[in-house]
């Protein structure tokens, strides 16, 4: 920060320097207060930043669903009756010709951004699996950034070697993103060893050109008849989470929870629809 410090020093010295009456009127008088304040002000001026007016302190709706598993780590669980689980699923997906449903772990993450790279993280992980003929939906999400490693640890503790991950575009998006997060947390990546069934590929193979696109929302509407109400688009999730983090406003974060919940349910139903009758 030498440049800024030097600048500060110049301002200090100026009182002792020869005082010139400037020809222009547009000379901004240097500040004489605390050093940090001057540096900050100088930086702000350089950046053309205006201090954002502190938000009006009206009460915000900061109500977070679920319970606290660890400081800042929230947990939501529910069970859903979707009719009895199949004993075994047969598919034409290579490597997954017959699947034992209790081994399936449907998952989906919500992330702080879509641009990828080390600065993008998952702030929510939703998981659905079959338990006693019902679909169990578990969601982990962060109320603080520090809770990330607790979330990664908890998610890892749910995974067993016999699990098959089920996702929609997870091979290219969610799994590499989590791999990065585990790496940054200096933890072993528990996903690497598991089989992973990404439904995007079979869906594309089967339905490309049939509907306008292969986004999960389109597929679930066309194939499963799911119509989401008050759905917060996935692209809005980063903003929703930041509003909670910086302003404590949880309204949209709750809509992200609902969206993620529907995503993992749709995954489970989609896989059933893709299954074929026993050969």
């Amino acid at each position: 920060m030498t440049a800024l410090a030097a600048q500060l020093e110049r301002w200090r010295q100026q009182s002792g320097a020869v005082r010139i009456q400037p020809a222009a009127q547009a000379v901004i008088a240097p500040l004489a207060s605390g050093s940090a304040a001057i540096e900050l002000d100088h930086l702000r001026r350089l950046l053309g930043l205006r201090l954002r007016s502190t938000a009006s302190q009206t009460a915000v709706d900061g109500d977070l669903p679920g319970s606290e598993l660890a400081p800042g780590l929230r947990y939501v669980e529910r069970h859903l009756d979707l009719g009895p689980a199949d004993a075994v699923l047969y598919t034409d997906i290579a490597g997954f010709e017959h699947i034992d449903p209790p081994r399936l772990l449907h998952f989906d993450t919500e992330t702080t951004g879509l641009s990828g790279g080390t600065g993008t993280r998952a702030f929510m992980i939703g998981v659905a699996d079959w338990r006693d003929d019902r679909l169990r939906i578990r969601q982990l999400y962060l109320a603080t950034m520090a809770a990330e490693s607790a979330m990664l640890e908890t998610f890892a503790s749910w995974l067993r070697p016999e699990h098959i991950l089920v996702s929609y575009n997870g091979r290219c998006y969610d799994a590499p993103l989590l791999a990065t997060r585990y790496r940054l947390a200096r933890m072993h990546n528990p996903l690497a060893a598991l089989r992973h069934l990404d439904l995007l590929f079979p869906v594309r193979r089967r339905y490309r050109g049939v509907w306008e696109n292969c986004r999960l929302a389109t597929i679930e509407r066309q194939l499963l008849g799911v119509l989401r109400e008050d759905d917060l688009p996935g692209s809005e999730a980063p903003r929703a989470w930041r509003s909670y983090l910086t302003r404590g406003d949880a309204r949209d974060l709750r809509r992200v929870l609902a969206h993620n919940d529907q995503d993992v349910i749709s995954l489970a139903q989609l896989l059933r629809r893709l299954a074929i009758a026993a050969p």
Partner: protein
Amino acid sequence: MSAIQSELTLSDRGLPRMQGADAAQLGAALQRKYAERITGHSVQPARSADYRPLPESLPAALRRALQARGINQLYSHQAEAWDAVGRGADVVVVTPTASGKSLCYTLPVVASAMTQSTRALYLFPTKALAQDQVTELLELNRAGDLGLRAHTFDGDTPGDARQAIRLHGTVVVSNPDMLHQGILPHHTKWAQFFENLRYIVIDEIHSYRGVFGSHLVNVLRRLRRVCAFYGSTPQFILCSATIGNPKAHAEALIEREVTAITRSGAPHGERHVLLWNPPVCNPDLGLRASARSQSNRIARLAVRAGLKTLVFAQSRLMVEVLTKYLKDVFDHDPRKPARIRAYRGGYLPGERRAAERAMRSGEVDAVVSTSALELGVDIGSLDVVVLNGYPGSIAATWQRFGRAGRRQQPALGILVASSDPLDQYLIRHPEFFSGAAPEHARLHADQPLILLDHIRCAAFELPFHDGDGFGSDAIDPFLQVLAESGVLHHEGTRWEWIADSYPANAVSLRSVADGNFVVVDRSEGRQTIIAEVDYSAAALTLYEGAIHMIQAQPYQVERLDWEGRKAFVTRTHVDYYTDAIDYSRLKVLAQFEGCVAGAGSALHGEVHVVRRVSGYKKIRYYSHENIGYGPVNLPDQELHTTAIWWQLPQSVLDAGFSSRQDALDGFLGAAYALHLVATVAVMAEARDLQKSVGSADGAWFAAADGRGRGQLRAIDGGLADPRDVPGFIPTVYLYDNYPGGVGLSDPLWRRQGELVVQARALIEGCACRAGCPACVGPILAADEAALDTPRALALRVLNLLFVP
């Protein structure tokens, strides 16, 4: 008229038939015939090689590979580098072009890769150099079956190859931009690479100066942060062309102590250098024949003599113009392969490769190039290098001269001065080129905006903690500003990235604003991208109506989509080229310091600059006459930077000058001279330091009109009369042409008194009577007879600012 004349004054007549002559003989003949144009001549004697045996500690397979490639001993600097790196030192090797410097890093990198499976990252400033380096490594690898995997990793690397390179590349050859935008922000994918990273090689470090260099320091800070995360502390091996402060520059780049190896053991042939000033063609106005006409003729003589010739020009436009002139002579038969080629940035990679191949194979006799060729791109042996204009630094001058003489034969380098005042100043002071160390490379890594950009990128890569340094100091204020703008979140002691963006994409290491312009050819219904142009050059070269030359083929810009960064062009057959007219105005925002300067004052502070391209001139080929103007309508470019400036109170001006117009002319002439000596004083690139004359409150600014007289313009650009301006206080500014300033105004401020003295001496020592392009700027014949000549007026201003 005068220009046409000058084309004719330098003819082949009177020169001995040069067919089959060597470069030294050509140099001697030119000296005999044009003695009055040559302001300096120097000869570097030939030097024989200083050899050392191959080191004992070299792995046997590597030794065999070297021997298979015909390398049975090392030059002394290669052996010294091997020893120093072996001791664990960070090293900079400073040797001339073609001295085998790459072996200085290849040996330790390959030896360590073979014995300890370590990995290395090479950074080159251009993709072309990276390509060459990989080729060289792979040849060595094949010669000894060493099991090396060397790959380039840059924007051209296909997606499906990237994973394999990350996982298995022994040597990854990339560039700072790719490291910054493609590697560091994805460092987790490179985890194994960083864990085993032992050497970082940075070649051509002299090219990392100014803004680019300041960015690189910060990219390296980020690189070291990431390495520390993976538990590695790689060693640096740096290479540089000859500059005045290689050790200090290397240390400024990597912020660690560095061992410098500066004595080359490589042999070279005799090297002749001529400094060439075009003849005066109008002594009254101090006008000289154009450098272009002289360079063109010298290149013709050299090619006729059978000498392989390289002509460096300062701009892409000049490359195209000179190429056309030479092609008109040597390439008029389209059935024969071209003997003349242009080479510059902005061509597509394939086209560039083809040009390089043609040059290496020797089928081309002359190449006309921009600085794109300055950096060791291998184009084979050359005899003669002609510099059409001073390249902006002594180091670049020597490096370009160094392209000639690779065969240990005599080489000839000729610097042809342009009418640019800096050229004229330097060409008359040959001492700048002899003996004196080339200038110092300058960095300003803690320039607040650059620093802020990289702190943002670094925070994306790994979170910061309270009290963390980046470089040396605590950076909490930067983190706080980033938190205020919503990209970081402070929680506990950590500053975490929370924005939904990829910050490296918004930061270009090479220019102020990101976004190259593409040039789209729409001739005959096509839609082909034929070139790319830097953002910084776009306003000056891609305005609607501009003639844009590509391989000497003129295209006219029909439409410029500024937001979309596209220029649409069609092929044309006009006989002119175009040149932009631009001006700037300044407003003082804050003053840091001030002091009395003679009867006036000198100040130092922050300014706001608005630059505008207002129109363009059409200039006919060969005659260079101005055949018309066109208007340009582009957004203003704004800049917030630092400057120094001088001003005189109105009472002093009223007493010292018979009219305000005279005072204004005096300030314009003084600005011209001050800018000239300041550029040399801080060894700035001319474009990094700019001058302006205007009112300190930004109410008006002045520019020389076509006749060399000051014109006063209001903020809207309209003409104003100096007599009507309230509070007439002209001010001459020298400003740093980079947002926030890149460290030029500080040293200028410290030397402000000296600059006035030097500017005065420059004008007083000039041979002209009334003023000329070498002192106060071009003047009009009518001013010759004036009582108060522009020269006298400028001297009067400087005398009033002079502190005895």
